[in-house]
């Protein structure tokens, strides 16, 4: 079976700062991949290159075997959902409107249908009661769950999570991870940049350790997290787990 998403020899520089130094990665349908690594190792940049929020300096990202280009980026993005560290909900419209806006404007879904779908998605993230709340009236954990529902609104084939719990108070992390766990169980293909090692161990099929823009180590969670081969991985895990 060919990969749903394949990243080939990807380089990305910001000015003279080379952030990604040749990434090769294939993600199969239904797979959950955890990206781990220190801050600045390139996790976010890698995710942002996948849906072309950042344009790669060289190399390619293929979705279903087709390279993603400027011309097809908008179309491909409909099938790649993204969840941000800082939620980025639209503050001027309600939770349910946040979810239905893209289906209406991008897919041309009727307002009624979009609303029905959005209501179902809010139920899925356990926020059925908050449909008419504005983002400013929701807690961080609730906002992030709305953001997940919003990304799901276009029925994407892949979901990218960019440190979805890093901006949350510790007591709110659990509710977001729970939603993500359910999503993984439903068979969604996911790439998750995270510092939550427990989540990675439990949910991921594969863990990838990024260090200074390169993939240093990858494999099943019990191997990478339990008995890492590389000294740098061991150092990183020791730092994260002792926090």
């Amino acid at each position, binding site marked *: 079976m060919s990969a749903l998403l394949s990243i080939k020899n990807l380089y990305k520089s910001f000015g003279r700062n080379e952030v990604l130094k040749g990434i090769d990665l294939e993600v199969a349908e239904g797979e959950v991949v955890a990206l781990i690594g220190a801050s600045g190792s390139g996790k976010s940049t890698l995710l942002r290159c996948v*849906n072309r929020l950042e344009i790669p300096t060289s190399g390619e990202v293929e979705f279903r075997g087709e390279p993603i280009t400027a011309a097809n980026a908008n*179309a491909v*993005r409909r099938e790649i959902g993204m969840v*941000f560290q800082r939620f*980025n909900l639209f503050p*001027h419209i309600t939770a349910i409107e946040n979810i239905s*806006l893209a289906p209406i404007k*991008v897919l041309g879904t009727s307002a009624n249908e979009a609303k029905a779908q959005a209501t179902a998605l809010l139920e899925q993230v356990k926020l059925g009661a908050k449909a008419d709340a504005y983002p400013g009236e929701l807690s961080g954990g609730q906002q992030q769950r709305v953001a997940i529902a919003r*990304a799901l609104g276009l029925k994407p084939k892949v979901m990218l999570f960019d440190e979805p719990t890093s901006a949350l108070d510790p007591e709110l992390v659990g509710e977001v991870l729970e939603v993500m766990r359910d999503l993984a169980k439903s068979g969604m293909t996911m790439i998750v940049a995270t510092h939550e090692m427990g989540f990675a161990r439990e949910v991921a099929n594969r863990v990838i350790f990024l260090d200074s823009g390169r993939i240093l180590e990858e494999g099943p969670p019990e191997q990478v997290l339990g008995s890492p081969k590389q000294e740098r991985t061991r150092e990183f895990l020791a730092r994260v787990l002792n926090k």
Partner: protein
Amino acid sequence: MLAGLALAWAGLASVAVAQGSLPQIKQRGELIFATDPTYPPFEYMEKAQMIGFDVDIGNEIAKDLGLKAKWIGLEWAGVLGSLESGKCDLAMAGITITAERKGKGYVFSRPYLLSGQEIVRRKGDTRINGPKDLVNKIVAVQQETTGQFAVAKLGVPKDHMLRFDQVQDGLMDVRNKRSDATVGDLPTLKAILQKGFPELELVGEPFVKETLGIVAWKNNPELVGLVNRSLNQMMVDGRYAVAYKKWFGEPLTAKIVGELENRKSDGSPVPDVPIAAMKELPQPKVTGSSFSFRWEVAGAAIPQLIKGAELTLALTLLSLLIGTPTGLIFALMRISPVKPLNWIATVYVEIVRGTPLLMQIYVIYFVLPAVGVELSSFVAGVLALSLNAAAYISEIFRAGIESIDSGQMEAARSLGMDYRVAMVNVILPQTVRRVLPPLTNEAVALLKDSSLVSVVALAELMRMGKEIATNGGSPTTVYLTVAVFYLAMTLPLTWLVRRLEAKWQPISRPRDGARRLKRVAA
């Protein structure tokens, strides 16, 4: 607050008052003349120096009284009013003696010059050969001059009369073919046409004969008595003849002197004060301000001020309606990645922000006709205000768009929206809420700036106020009333916007923060 304003005003007046009683003038050692120095050959600026016939005569009068002459240059609209407010002792600006002005409290000296209302047309425009031909034409006049009164008397309807601040503006308007003719004081028109406007010419002889006088406020007849003495003296000892020859380019004839003597009674009846009396005056006691709000003047002004306010509102609203979307378009061009669009918008904004609005109005009204673009006063005014507002509004929008967190655009794009859809549905709705306060500022500024279009003959609120004040009403009262009118338009606007902001408050987090801050402070 208004009471405070009035108090401050009165306070100012008492400091600056040059109440024209003789003892005060004597103590000051200066005789203060108000004039409008755009009026050759009577008074005009040359090499930063005010010169002219009036200046020479006025200086001689001051000398006769043992005083130093001091000249204040004002707009014509402010010249007569400055007498009542005590900013000056005498007004001298080629001012025609009229019964109407006397009735309003102005005291005139004996006539010191013969003048008359003269018509100017484009060279060879044979449709206009005399006053009767003006009736169905468009006629430019200088506002609140005897030229305007003479044209009105001919039966030219008000909407056929374009009223300007300066004689020169009227001449330009005839040259630009918007007006068919202009009417003004013969000596001034002659002097201006000698130096410029080769496309224009005088039509025959003056159709109204007039005499000019020197003016004081009604509390000061003794000063006028002294002026008369000095003028009489000058006519006899030859100083008058010298000034006449110098400024009008022809010798003073016995016929002119005789005519001036015959019309001596044009001046106001005043006590005959020997010049020596000035020198024997005792040291004065200081008197206070004479400010009082004259309700009857304010009441009489209101119907006209309402008309002016209507025009002000129309100008402002139309300019906002045109300027806001135009400004938004320029803002989008400025942040556009397409370089040429970016350049065009940047150049536009810099040019408009870097030049005075008054100049832009002049260019649109007086210069565009030279390249074949004819605009009515109203259209030119709206156009100038809209284009000006658009530049400022575009900067407001640009700053507003740039203040929206970049994560908003990224989230929208990650949902498959293209740039346009993201702008329209995500970025701009947030921008509008955020720029509302600075946009209100701009709207209020625009409302006030709209007074500048009065230079292209639009009788908006400020111009109406000026006209009423020039016309002999108490300027202080009139301008305070105008201030109330402006407040009556700006305060509801700011109130409305505050309501809107309050309505949108729970929506965006920063405001929530502000509200929390307030609660903590309380």
